[in-house]
């Protein structure tokens, strides 16, 4: 089969690029990007062929997906692990996001890293990341997924700490790695639990499809309850997708180069958790309690991160908290049982957040590595391409129709209401206001109003080269159209135009989530434009507009005919009215301080005590035993005089004692 060759090739090409660049990249100097970019480019082309073959249900894929085995990795009796790939429509959607954004980020990085002393290292790491991420979405075995899971963690670590001479970057890389480990422990335990459970039902297997089937259809007594498995897997997802309380690593990860933030920490790797939960949806669907946990943690992260994003001044940190918040939406969506809506938002968010991050990189590039929005302003005329594309991205994320973000966010909120999670909907609506607000605060502070740029830098502000702006414009296209395309011919616009049937994406993903939805026992209600659905739709548009207008009122606007100057005085009086909330948001709700107190101060004390215990009690006991043994040996060696008659005397005394005691005993 041709696809049995093409699918492994998607991973093999970036792998070859990584090996080549790592081996000889240093000697290529400024041309080091050629091989990695072309490797990803060809992988993109192959990936699109595979993805569209799957989405159109072509020969080997059909509805159920196509599995291909590369080789047997661990043959051990009845337990065996194959390195194999599985492509169904869910994988295809992820392939489109990962490969497209990956390729555009590679191209963008040619311009962004042009002045870096070692671009070859950067491109080698980027290719390594592509290998890991593609393996993650393609693997058909939990153990291989776990390997890829750790590999994306490694490449994320390498790329966050790419500028390793910077103390803050090195620390941020370490923080990301360690916080991720916490979640990974859960995931590893979850995989073990899955194996234990499948073993109790017959053959132990870690193959994803077989395990999902076995765990959810047998209805047998599992030694480890299904909700424990679900929560352990979710713990891994929380680490990788930076959900509360493991969210602290993602904002710090912005220390890495901006293309990395766009690729790894916005569009692809952080989606791995969403993908994992969506992939194992039958497990979650069998345990409704765990679904509620997923929904609560997701929506709580969404509002927490959105509240922090409202006051941050570092342009990349605003976007980072925005990413956290949107990931929270996705988990909330998974938690309420709207799996397809979560993947919908994953795709649209991947594109517009990738665009926003690459745009922020272009801004930072223009103002000479300045990231503080208080020292920007009025950049709209100076960097028009960046401005326009970022504006498109902001409208998309704010949820203004008909851009992409509106469709996916509205679907999440609507599903939450209709599935009986009104409280998730209520919090989600508040988050939607905040999202629109902080995005237009960002645009206002960066592009509109008076320039607050350092006068020394001011004359040197320049638009980025075409190699950087072209990816921005390419990403702007899906940011505008993707929501519309993927939702047609279904709601919300389908019925208005007189079309029938489910949305394009919903149709694609239906076979993937069929089992999970069945387990949840949900039935699709008829879409009512002039009923509940219309009201929910109106609400989500209204809150987006309110958020945007609020931001315009406070931070100014300069859009076509709308002009308004920023009103810093009003911002000050408003923040003075809610001093606690303002300080909480500014200090990120003190989570970093809490972690510092818990793990550095208190944990440090405990570690110091244990170190003392080890040194004084454990080590000293061992040393004392050794000293006693040596001392005793020194004393006892005097018995060994070396004189043969002393030994003979011992033998004689022994003989006499033996004979004597025999006589005494025999006499009785």
């Amino acid at each position, binding site marked *: 089969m041709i696809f049995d060759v093409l699918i492994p090739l998607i991973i093999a090409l970036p792998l070859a690029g990584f090996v080549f660049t790592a081996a000889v990249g240093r000697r290529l100097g400024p041309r080091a990007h050629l091989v990695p970019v072309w490797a990803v480019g060809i992988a993109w082309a192959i990936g699109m062929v595979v993805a569209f073959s799957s989405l159109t249900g072509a020969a080997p894929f059909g509805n159920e997906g196509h599995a291909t085995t590369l080789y047997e990795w661990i043959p051990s009796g009845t337990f065996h692990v194959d390195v194999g790939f599985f492509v169904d429509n869910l994988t295809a959607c992820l392939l489109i996001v990962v490969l497209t954004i990956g390729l555009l980020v590679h191209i963008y990085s040619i311009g962004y890293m042009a002045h870096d002393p070692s671009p070859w290292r950067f491109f080698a790491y980027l290719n390594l990341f592509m290998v890991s991420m593609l393996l993650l979405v393609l693997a058909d075995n939990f153990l291989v997924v776990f390997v890829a899971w750790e590999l994306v963690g490694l490449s994320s670590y390498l790329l966050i700490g790419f500028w390793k001479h910077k103390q803050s970057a090195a620390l941020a890389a370490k923080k990301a790695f360690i916080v991720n480990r916490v979640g990974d422990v859960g995931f590893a335990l979850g995989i073990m639990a899955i194996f234990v459970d499948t073993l109790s039902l017959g053959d132990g297997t870690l193959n994803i499809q077989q395990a999902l089937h076995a765990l959810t259809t047998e209805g047998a007594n599992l030694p480890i309850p299904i909700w424990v498995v679900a929560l352990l897997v979710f713990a891994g997802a929380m680490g990788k997708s930076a959900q509360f309380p493991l969210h602290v690593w993602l904002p710090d990860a912005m220390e890495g180069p901006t293309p990395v933030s766009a690729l790894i920490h916005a569009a692809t790797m952080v989606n791995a958790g969403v993908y994992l939960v969506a992939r194992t949806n039958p497990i979650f669907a069998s345990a409704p309690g765990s679904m509620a946990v997923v929904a609560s943690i997701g929506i709580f992260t969404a509002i927490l991160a959105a509240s922090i994003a409202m006051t941050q001044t570092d342009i990349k940190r605003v976007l980072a908290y925005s990413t956290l918040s949107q990931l929270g939406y996705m988990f909330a969506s998974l938690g309420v049982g709207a799996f397809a809506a979560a993947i919908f938002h994953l795709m649209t968010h991947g594109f517009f957040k990738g665009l926003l991050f690459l745009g922020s990189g272009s801004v930072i590039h223009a103002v000479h590595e300045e990231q503080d929005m208080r020292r920007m302003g009025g950049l709209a005329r100076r960097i028009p391409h960046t401005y326009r594309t970022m504006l498109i991205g902001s409208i998309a994320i704010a949820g203004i129709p008909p851009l992409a973000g509106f469709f996916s966010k509205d679907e999440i909120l609507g599903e939450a209401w209709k599935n009986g999670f009104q409280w998730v909907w209520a919090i989600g609506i508040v988050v939607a206001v905040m999202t629109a607000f902080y995005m237009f605060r960002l645009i206002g502070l960066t592009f509109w109003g008076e320039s607050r740029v350092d006068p020394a830098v001011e004359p040197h502000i320049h638009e980025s080269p075409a190699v950087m702006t072209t990816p921005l414009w390419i990403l702007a296209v899906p940011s505008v159209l993707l929501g519309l395309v993927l939702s047609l011919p279904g709601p919300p616009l389908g019925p208005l135009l007189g079309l029938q049937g489910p949305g394009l994406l919903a149709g694609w993903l239906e076979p993937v989530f069929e089992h999970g939805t069945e387990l949840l026992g949900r039935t699709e209600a008829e879409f009512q434009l002039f009923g509940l659905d219309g009201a929910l739709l109106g609400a989500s548009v209204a809150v987006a507009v309110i958020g945007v207008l609020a931001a315009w009122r406070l931070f100014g606007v300069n859009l076509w005919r709308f002009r308004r100057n920023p009103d810093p005085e009003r911002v000050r009086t408003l923040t003075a009215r809610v001093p606690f909330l303002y300080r909480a948001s500014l200090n990120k709700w003190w989570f970093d301080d809490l972690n510092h107190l818990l793990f550095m101060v208190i944990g440090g004390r405990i570690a110091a005590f244990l170190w003392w215990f080890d040194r004084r009690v454990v080590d000293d006991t061992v040393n004392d035993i050794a000293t006693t043994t040596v001392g005793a040996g020194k004393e006892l*060696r005097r018995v*060994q005089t*070396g*004189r*043969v*008659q002393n*030994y003979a*005397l011992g033998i*004689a005394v022994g003989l006499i004692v033996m004979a004597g005691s025999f006589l005494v005993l025999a006499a009785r």
Partner: protein
Amino acid sequence: MIRVILGSVLAGAFIVGLGLIGLAAGGSRSLNAYLTLSGILFAIGMFGFLARRNAISMLMAIELMLNAVNLSIIGFASFDEKLGPSGSVIALLVMAVAAGEATVGLSIILAIYRNKKTPLVDEYDAMSQ
């Protein structure tokens, strides 16, 4: 000269004493007489081995102990019908082993003597190392 005469007298008295003890224990018709003689001989050998400083004397003391054991075996053999001639065979075997042991022991003593230039065993302490 006096020491030799005194020694001979003492030795004679000792042997006579031994004979008297043997007779007191039941004469040549009693197993106890043989075993008593054997025990006394063994004690003398042990004393010699422990108390003499000269390596050759110690070797001779060992021979004495071996012969004491042989004597008891022969004694048992002649008083117990079940043992029969096998007692004599065991005694012969012990003699052969004793001869071999004496040969090896003597050559070891000679080798040490060449190194240490002394036959006195309390000068030998190489075994402590």
